């Protein structure tokens, strides 16, 4: 081919590709919404895209998802469910881009941490008018539903809900001469246990804590809630963590880090760092929920039987965590109704979908983790507990103290402007863990001023 022809072909190709991208991006949302709004309300065909389908490298869970989709579509012949697999299910870097480009799923997956931010930005649809079509919603714990509420309006539904506890390595407890059946119930006991574990030798860390990438602020909040403190005042206008409880959180860490030397030398840890350390069998304890054990087992080569979860020491309140689904703000009413039915089928019905423990056991998947508490002490909640016990494949007794402790613990939600506040609190956490002469009063006072400023701007 002559160079001139090649150049023309190349230019034309690029122009066509660019035009293709442009038109696709621009037209998709309109096309979708017009399709939805043009369709009759009753049994007209409707297709919903759903995020967080299990990833392809997990074929058993993919097969379960596909089976559920097939069964659901048989029950609702007018609805087509298109799952979109991704791992991890949400990536902050692509969330806004997907929304801007019209590529966001009709039902998109969210962590609790992001829910209020998304509602505040108007990036999720109000589903309140359609909730009557989903009876299961009435049985969800009211405190859990609060996560997805702003005023009286509801913007999503939970999939997984848990409260924070103390994850510990039972094997290390035994090695250090501690009783794995009696995990620490107070922070003094945590300190003592951490010292013994760290004394096992170089590389052993008694207690691990985050202090970078906003995770430090997140865990500060968790500890603070456990001690009865609060991050912001009830009206949400002022910082409230510069308190005896806030000081106690940092004092405790300072003692373990510098006096007991039980927190290891490497700090500025983030989420995956503690998971890796827990999986490697060198970390004794960390704040976390049962999903940590799942993650350590699935991704970081840990074994279920080596870990246990206890209640958060001394806690009467606990930061709740979890995830769920929200709806694309451009989704039509038909899509929202269909999406709610799918959520009910897959995630909110005992013995079905994610609660089909019999199938999970038959497929060789772990059953027994107390990682989903959506219904509390209601009928569906009790039924799910019974089924989980009946088909358990992991030692459920390793998590009993967590379950017992949580029966009396009040769930607390994350503060407003959570990520901004966590970024500020990261500074205090990293100071205490990296600087022996850190002045806790000063750190809390500085952080208070910064958070007051953030809250003043947002109100």
């Amino acid at each position: 081919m002559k160079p001139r022809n090649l150049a023309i072909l190349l230019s034309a190709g690029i122009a066509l590709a660019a035009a293709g991208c442009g038109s696709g991006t621009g037209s998709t949302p309109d096309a979708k919404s017009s399709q939805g709004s043009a369709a009759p309300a009753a049994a007209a065909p409707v297709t919903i895209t759903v995020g967080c389908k299990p990833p392809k490298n997990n074929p058993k869970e993919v097969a379960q998802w596909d089976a559920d989709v097939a069964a659901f579509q048989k029950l609702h012949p007018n609805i087509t469910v298109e799952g979109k697999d991704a791992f991890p299910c949400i990536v902050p870097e692509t969330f806004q881009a997907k929304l801007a480009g019209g590529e966001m799923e009709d039902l998109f997956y969210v962590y609790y941490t992001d829910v209020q931010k998304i509602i505040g930005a108007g990036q999720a649809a109000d589903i309140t008018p359609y909730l009557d079509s989903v009876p299961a919603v009435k049985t969800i714990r009211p405190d859990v539903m609060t996560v997805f509420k702003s005023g009286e309006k509801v913007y999503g539904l939970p999939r997984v809900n848990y409260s924070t506890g103390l994850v510990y390595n039972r094997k290390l407890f035994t090695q250090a001469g501690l009783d794995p059946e009696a995990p620490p119930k107070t922070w003094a006991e945590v300190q003592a246990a951490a010292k013994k574990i760290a004394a096992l030798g170089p590389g052993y860390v008694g207690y691990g804590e985050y202090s970078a990438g906003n995770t430090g602020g997140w865990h500060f909040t968790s500890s603070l809630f456990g001690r009865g403190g609060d991050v912001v005042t009830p009206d949400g206008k002022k910082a409230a963590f510069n308190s005896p409880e806030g000081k106690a959180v940092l004092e405790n860490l300072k003692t373990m880090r510098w006096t007991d030397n039980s927190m290891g030398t490497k700090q500025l840890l983030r989420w995956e760092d503690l998971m890796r350390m827990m999986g490697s069998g060198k970390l004794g304890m960390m704040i976390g929920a049962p999903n940590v054990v799942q993650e350590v087992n699935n991704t970081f080569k840990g074994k279920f039987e080596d870990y246990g979860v206890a209640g958060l020491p001394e806690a009467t309140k606990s930061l709740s965590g979890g995830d769920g689904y929200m709806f694309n703000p451009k989704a039509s009413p038909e899509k929202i109704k269909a999406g709610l039915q799918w959520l009910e089928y897959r995630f909110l019905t005992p013995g079905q979908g994610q609660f089909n423990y019999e199938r999970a056991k038959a497929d060789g998947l772990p059953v027994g983790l107390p990682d989903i508490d959506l219904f509390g002490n209601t009928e569906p909640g009790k039924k799910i507990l019974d089924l989980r016990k009946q088909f358990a494949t992991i030692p459920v007794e390793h998590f009993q103290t967590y379950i017992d402790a949580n029966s009396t613990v009040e769930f607390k939600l994350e503060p407003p402007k959570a990520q901004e506040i966590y970024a500020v609190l990261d500074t205090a956490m990293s100071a205490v863990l990296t600087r022996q002469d850190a002045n806790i009063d000063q750190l809390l006072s500085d952080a208070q001023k910064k958070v007051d400023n953030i809250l003043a701007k947002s109100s």
Partner: protein
Amino acid sequence: MTTMSVRGSRRRTPGAVRRRVRRNLTAYGFLCGALICFAFFSWYPMVREFLLSFQKTNFVGPPEWIGLDNFRTVTEDSAFIPAWTNTAVFTGLALIVGYAVPFVAAIVLNELRHAKAYLRFVVYLPVMLPPAVAVLLFKWFYDPGPGLFNQILDLVHLPGLSWLDSTSTALISLVLVSTWMNLGTGTLIYLAALQSIPGELYEAAELDGAGLFRRVWHVTIPQTKLILLVMLLLQIVATMQVFIEPYLLTGGGPENATVTVAYLMYQYAFSFGNFGGGGALGLMLMIVLMVFSAVYLRVSRDNQI
């Protein structure tokens, strides 16, 4: 009259224009491709970013124009001053370390008589590693416990350092990573410049009794002055955008000691969901970088690079 006749001779008939266009069709074709790529992947995002910095948007409804509010928000952020200070200090340190080291490495490589190709490959090797891999490699090197650097210090009976975990060493630790990652490119460019220096100049200097350092001072540096200046400006523009090192190694900590403008921009856009704030920071950084880019363009134009 002369001017008139020149103008007259430049006047083209439609047929002549057509012939001229046809003759240059290949060039226009290639130019068109490049223009489309630049327009979509460079200029459009830049314009969009400029607009975003004056808007409040949720990417769902129409954006709201809010004047300078985003600039006010980011400048009042407690991390704003540390971010700019750290960026400036990082750039300064990266110039001292990262500018001198590749030049010295190039001179040494140029002077070598044996294993030149092998060593050139070794020096360039870090550039071939994906940046994330190189950064994570250093995360292990910097581990205060079993990390490589503290093990080496221990071998020579020196106390270990906290590296990334200390406010006094965290930023310089990031500079070391950055220097190591970019050493190869700088060295190769300097080496090419060194090899273009006529050998007679060195021979003459040697005949005049100049030693290695005098040869470098009186021959090498004057002969490579231009490329040194250009590299200096390019390095300033590149290092001021430092992001991956603080993102992967420190998360901006400890105590904001490594938070940079680009990292803060990321925090605003992706952690806080405030693209306007991120855009405002980006625009500020862009203006600063444009000054250096303008100097670079001036230098390259004046010297016909």
